[in-house]
């Protein structure tokens, strides 16, 4: 009987131990699986966070990144609580869910950062491209319309554009956009300055006066049966009339600041008015091949100069200037003189014999509402649209 009892005890103990081993193995298996699940979820969230940071979410989606970091810290805390608990089988569901929330927040931060960065890149590139076009256009304008000291706006625009390109290269996209916008604004100021200068070409009274001078010069040539010259500054043409008929039209080069009317010595402007040839100079006495000296300044020019001086609109020591000629040495394809009208030497050879002392030389800004007038008016309209 005793032997049977002992036998039963041994069997019962064995069964109990086997059960315990089975339960332990099952528990170990569950714990291992849960720990692995937590680790996998943690790794996924950390990977998402790394990707968000690589996308520079700190700059482009800082709020979303902070949320993701907070969620990640919360998940880590939950995991450590489970890992340090006395009970060996962790409750992993909440931890995995916390890591999943962190991963989701990090993914959102990455997507936001990616989209915003791309938008900022596109914005910076677009603004730089616009600024490049504006600066280039204004540069071409400033080459044709002398801005004097106000040319510094163009220089500043170029510098701002250059800075924008440096910022773009360094990945400072917001600064790049800002500087490009400044460059474009400065270029616009250059255009507006040029438009102010060009505005006189859109003035109906000016155009009518210039057309009258041209008409009267041609009439004089017809009536007197003699040669006369009309220079149209905006078209860069000089027409030789004989007995009222246009014999030949030449392309001419003018003063570097031809667009304005000459007022004083050194302003680089070509004068506008009705002049006459006062001296013919052959290639021995002229610095620029042959030359026809005109009577600038005439009475109108002197009266205008005096008016400016009286009003204090001239710098001290300003002089009215002179020595305005039609001369050779041209053909340089740019306005390079200090106010004279230049043609090629071959053309001068054609003109010279047909002109005598006393030949009228009428210089006008324009004979029609031309492209300069159109530019000035368009700029004025655009400026009106920009004003609030």
């Amino acid at each position, binding site marked *: 009987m005793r032997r049977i009892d002992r036998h039963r005890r041994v069997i019962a103990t064995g069964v109990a131990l086997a059960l315990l081993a089975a339960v332990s193995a099952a528990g170990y298996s569950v714990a291992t699986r849960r720990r692995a699940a937590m680790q996998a979820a943690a790794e996924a969230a950390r990977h998402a966070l790394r990707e968000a*940071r690589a996308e520079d979410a*700190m700059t482009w989606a800082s709020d979303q990144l902070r949320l993701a*970091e907070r969620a*990640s*810290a919360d998940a*880590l*805390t939950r*995991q*450590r*609580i489970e*890992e*340090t*608990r*006395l009970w060996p089988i962790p409750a992993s569901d909440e931890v995995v869910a916390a890591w999943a929330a962190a991963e989701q927040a990090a993914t959102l931060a990455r997507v936001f950062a990616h989209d915003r960065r791309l938008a900022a890149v596109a914005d910076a590139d677009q603004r730089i491209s616009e600024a490049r076009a504006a600066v280039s256009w204004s540069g071409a304008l*400033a080459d044709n319309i*002398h801005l*004097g*000291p106000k*040319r*510094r706006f*163009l*220089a*500043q625009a*170029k*510098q*701002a*554009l*250059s*800075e924008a390109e*440096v*910022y773009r290269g*360094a990945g*400072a996209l917001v*600064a790049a956009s800002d*500087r490009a916008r400044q460059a474009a604004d400065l270029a616009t100021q250059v255009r507006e300055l040029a438009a102010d200068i060009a505005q006189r070409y859109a003035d109906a009274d000016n155009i009518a006066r210039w057309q009258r001078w041209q008409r009267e010069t041609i009439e004089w040539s017809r009536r007197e049966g003699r040669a006369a010259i009309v220079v149209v500054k905006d078209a860069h043409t000089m027409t030789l009339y004989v007995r009222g008929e246009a014999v030949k039209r030449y392309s001419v080069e003018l003063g*570097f*600041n031809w667009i304005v009317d000459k007022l004083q010595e*050194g302003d*680089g402007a070509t004068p506008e008015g009705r002049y006459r040839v006062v001296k013919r100079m052959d290639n021995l006495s002229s610095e620029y091949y042959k030359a026809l000296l005109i009577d600038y300044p005439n009475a109108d020019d002197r009266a205008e100069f005096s008016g400016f001086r009286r009003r204090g609109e001239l710098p001290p020591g300003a002089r009215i200037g002179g020595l305005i000629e039609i001369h050779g040495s041209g053909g*340089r394809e740019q306005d*390079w*003189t*200090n106010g004279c009208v230049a043609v090629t030497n071959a053309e001068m050879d054609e003109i010279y014999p047909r002109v005598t002392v006393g030949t009228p030389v009428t210089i006008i800004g324009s004979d029609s509402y031309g492209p300069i007038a159109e530019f000035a008016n368009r700029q004025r309209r655009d400026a009106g649209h920009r004003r609030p």
Partner: protein
Amino acid sequence: MRVRAGLMMLVLGLAVTLVACATPPTADIDAVKTSISGAEAAGAADYAADSLKAAQDAQAALDAELKAQEGNWMKSYDKAKTLAAAAKAAGEKATTDATAGKEKAKADAAQGIADAKAALTAAQELLAKAPKGKGTAADLAAMKTDLETAATTITEAEAALGSVKYLDAKAKAASAKAAADKVTADVEAAKAAKKK
């Protein structure tokens, strides 16, 4: 027998009490905070962003460990101490990296300004010797304006350098140098064209 059992209970109770009453490594935690604050003050956010982020991550791991231990009946701060040491080291590395990055940015900006000044001087000297006369007056005036603007930009770059805005200083210096180099190239081209 009873005495022995009582003693065992007492030893066990003491051990449990000692473990349960373990305190967080406050000095280590403070050292981590100081280390990371130092990195931020050294400009790590701008000049060593990755190192700072690594230090902040290490601090987050430490915080998680501390919170986990707070809720435990049987507290152990051994791992927290290890994490604190790692976070402190990461903070110190961020400080070192920030200082080095800042110095490099400063040196780059200063070099950029020196280069721009040299380019400006060269352009000014060349422009002063450029042939003057009919046909060049407008170009010379335009180049002079460009150089005056470049000089102003260099002054702005120096101000930015003084205000620790190194990227601004570098950008301004680079644009001033480009403007001065352009004038030099234009004058050289004009001289070469004249020789032909």
